[in-house]
């Protein structure tokens, strides 16, 4: 059903474009052509902005700069070198695109530039560019007049020509914006929106995707700028490089719904018509106030926008008619036939792996071997470097020193998405699902990127298998918010497995679960190994460690303290000291490894000597 819809959507866009192309033939006054032109121009601007900002959540306030770059490219070519108008448009797109890529190549490299920082930065770029243009011969401070440039005869009148051009641009932009949402690229962008780090760890090349989205967005805005230059006929910096363009597109997209390809277009039509009706009635000032009011109301009462709200209403009405969307699947996961190599071979080897944070040594050079087919327990008190180890191996952190060899290839310093593709998957201790995507799509994303599947449809089918494996097949269509902690942990597992990794890093999957749930999870981890993956298991729940692991390594203060068979290692005095404190210490030294669900206020288990406590948990 969705596949059918997909083929209909582009046809509908093109069909609407073709129908609207007959409007000039109606012979309406030129004034209507111009109004329609403005609506279409804003559709192009808002929709192109949305490709980066709406899909990924990187709200750019620099759209005016890219639009302006297009305007001034076309204006300069026409006024100074007498280029024909249409020939300037590809160059306007190219210049804006190059500018966007240059900005993005710097900005996207710096971690932490998101939200308001990204908005401010891109706004500052707008003003810097404006200042440079007004002070150089490009503008010279007086503006550029295009009175001499000829308007090509595409329509019966010049205003019809502009209308038709804008119509073509809007059709193209909407096709691009829609097309992105149904591709792997789009799935990656939406994942970046919800949790960029998790997306990267799951194999989404976040940097490249953001840059590509920005490049497409800028090229479309630049082409629109080139077109608008001739429409304006006289361009000045003061009117181009302002805060008006970015704020208008933000407003339109938020009003319409920035997570949907058609949202910004709906917002553009509404706002342009509204402003026009106020201006036409000589209430331009009131129009300004009305736009402010709408912006406030939209954010406070409808933060998702008109379109998602309408779709939800429609969906609610149809509910019940829709049966399980997913195709029936046998619950047994098709065993990933990746365990071809003999068990016991070294799969992952770290040597002198170290990580410091501003001088604090989180990991001080550890050598760990993980053998194919085993479940390796990674133990140690809080702060001993277990999570740092996981973050290093999964590529989230860049090591300060040492090497990480996976299947014989050096991976230290590789980007996280490359490591994910290479066959390493991880879970997060506190589950980090993509909040705006269904449980099915969450898992499909991992299959799509980590698993290297070609398109979202295939990935969804693959994902159903893993949802069934984790026992979540009934929850496929709900949002992660509707899951309880136990289910979210299993969703983490399903996501990790959907990439068909050879190595799975499980970061405290049992933490916070009830005893019964722990039993479920232990059985699941065992099945993960049985279907071919190797597991590194970070855990505090000793019962599970003893039941599951083939070998354990113990970290303490960022160093490797012990290694060997679980029962033997846990009896070593240095391990007990590290875990439980000095045997002679008072009850205060009670293990912070006590069952994690225990509320902190509960008194530590009274009395037993550390060793007794340990053994009790073995049993």
């Amino acid at each position, binding site marked *: 059903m969705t596949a059918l819809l997909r083929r209909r959507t582009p046809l509908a866009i093109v069909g609407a474009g073709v129908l609207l192309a007959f409007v000039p033939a109606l012979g309406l006054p030129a004034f209507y052509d111009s109004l329609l032109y403005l609506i279409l121009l804003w559709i192009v601007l808002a929709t192109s902005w949305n490709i980066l900002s709406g899909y990924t959540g990187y709200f750019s306030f620099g759209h005016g700069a890219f639009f302006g770059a297009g305007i001034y490219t076309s204006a300069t070519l026409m006024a100074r070198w007498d280029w024909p108008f249409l020939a300037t448009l590809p160059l306007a797109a190219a210049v804006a695109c190059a500018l966007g890529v240059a900005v993005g190549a710097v900005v996207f490299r710096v971690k932490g*530039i998101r939200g308001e920082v990204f908005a*401010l930065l891109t706004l*500052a770029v707008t003003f*810097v560019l404006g200042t440079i243009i007004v002070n150089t011969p490009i503008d010279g401070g007086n503006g550029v007049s295009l009175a001499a440039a000829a308007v090509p005869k595409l329509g019966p009148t010049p205003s019809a020509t502009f209308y038709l051009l804008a119509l073509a641009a809007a059709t193209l932009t909407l096709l691009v914006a829609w097309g992105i949402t149904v591709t792997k690229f789009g799935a990656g962008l939406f994942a970046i929106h919800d949790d960029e780090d998790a997306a990267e760890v799951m194999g989404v090349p976040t940097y490249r995707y953001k840059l590509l989205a920005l490049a497409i967005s800028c090229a479309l805005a630049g082409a629109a700028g080139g077109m608008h230059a001739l429409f304006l006929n006289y361009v000045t910096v003061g009117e181009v490089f302002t805060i008006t363009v970015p704020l208008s597109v933000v407003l339109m997209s938020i009003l319409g719904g920035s997570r949907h390809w058609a949202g910004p277009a709906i917002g553009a039509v509404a706002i342009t018509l509204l402003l026009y009706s106020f201006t036409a009635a000589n209430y331009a000032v*009131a129009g300004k*106030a009305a736009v*402010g009011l709408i*912006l406030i109301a939209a954010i406070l009462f409808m933060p998702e926008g008109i379109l998602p709200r309408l779709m939800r209403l429609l969906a609610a009405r149809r509910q019940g008619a829709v049966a399980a969307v997913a195709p029936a699947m046998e619950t047994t996961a098709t065993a990933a036939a990746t365990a071809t190599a003999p068990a016991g071979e070294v799969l992952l080897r770290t040597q002198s792996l170290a990580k410091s944070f501003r001088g604090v040594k989180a990991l001080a050079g550890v050598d760990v071997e993980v053998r194919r087919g085993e479940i390796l327990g990674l133990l140690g008190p809080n702060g001993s470097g277990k999570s740092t180890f996981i973050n290093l191996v999964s590529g989230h952190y860049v090591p300060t020193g040492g090497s990480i060899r996976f299947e014989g290839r050096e991976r230290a310093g590789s980007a996280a998405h490359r490591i994910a593709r290479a066959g390493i998957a991880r879970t997060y201790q506190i589950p980090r699902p993509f909040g705006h995507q269904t449980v099915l799509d969450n898992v499909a994303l991992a299959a799509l990127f980590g698993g290297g599947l070609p398109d979202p449809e295939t990935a969804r089918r693959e994902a159903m298998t893993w949802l069934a494996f984790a026992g979540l097949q009934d929850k496929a269509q709900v949002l992660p918010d509707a899951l309880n902690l136990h289910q979210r942990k299993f969703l983490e597992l399903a996501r990790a497995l959907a990439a068909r990794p050879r190595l799975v890093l499980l970061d405290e999957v049992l933490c916070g679960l009830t005893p019964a749930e722990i039993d479920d999870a232990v059985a699941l981890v065992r099945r993960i190994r049985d279907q071919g993956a190797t597991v590194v298991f970070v855990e505090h729940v000793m019962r599970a460690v003893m039941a599951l692991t083939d070998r354990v390594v113990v970290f303490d203060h960022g160093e490797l303290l012990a290694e060997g068979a679980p029962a033997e290692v846990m009896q070593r005095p240095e391990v007990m000291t590290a875990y439980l404190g000095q045997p002679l210490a008072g009850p205060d030294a009670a293990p912070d490894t006590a069952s994690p669900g225990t509320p902190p206020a509960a008194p530590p288990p009274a009395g037993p000597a550390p060793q007794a406590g340990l053994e009790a948990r073995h049993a």
Partner: protein
Amino acid sequence: MSGFTWPSATLLAQSVLSGVFVGALYGLLGLGLSLSWGLLRQINLALFAFAFLAAYLCYQMAGLGVDPLATLLVIAPAFFVLGALLHALMAHFAITPFNSLLVTFGLTGIVEAIIQSIWTADFRKLESSYAEHRWKVASVYVPLPELITLAAALVLSFGVWAVLRYTDLGKALRASAEDAPIAAAFGIHERRNALLLAGTCSALASVAGVCLALGFTLAPSQIYAWVGVVFAAVMLGGLGRALAPLAAGIVIGVSEAVTMAVTAPSWAPLVSFTLLIAILLLRPGRAA
């Protein structure tokens, strides 16, 4: 960089001085923004609109014969209430910092429209006896309105700094900014404090507005002219710190004034925005 010339020593000194004065206004406008961003997690763009509204009110009352500085007795409390009300609204909806930027931008548009419908889009200049006073100190001119601005910026910045640093209220505010639920668990009346702070930020903006009216011509569209450079000062100084916006504002003001003296006035925005870009790229954590 066409038109690059070395200015005379007098011109340079006058530039630096006017940079200090305009920087003081940047600092005063930035003070409320920095506090509300850093301590309340709200990027209150409407403070610029409030400053201009206060400036126009001051202009209006001065036209009736009231001393411009005396108008603060009415204006500052009024804007305190306005700011607290705005905060109550935003707190009720629990909006994110980014959305607070958009909401207060919408409000700025509304205030701009109100100003334009009352006082028109024409430029207005407050005529007062203050503007007639200026002294010549060793070949440079020191105008009184600017001196008042500098004094106000210094007094208010140091006053806020002392309150934040030494009083229980200040400590409570800083604790709430760090972790509101934990602060509340320790008995801090977080909502009341936040209202108090939001009102203060707004009142500070109104003082900046009166200073603006004393020294500058007013037009509704000018609201946006201050946004970029004041943001630069706030980011340069770091969020939630009382003395930083003033210090950073003066740095930016002086660099702009010297740029104008050495090249052309139209190059001035390049300084503040390049600085802003550099800070954001090098220290993005400052705004987090």
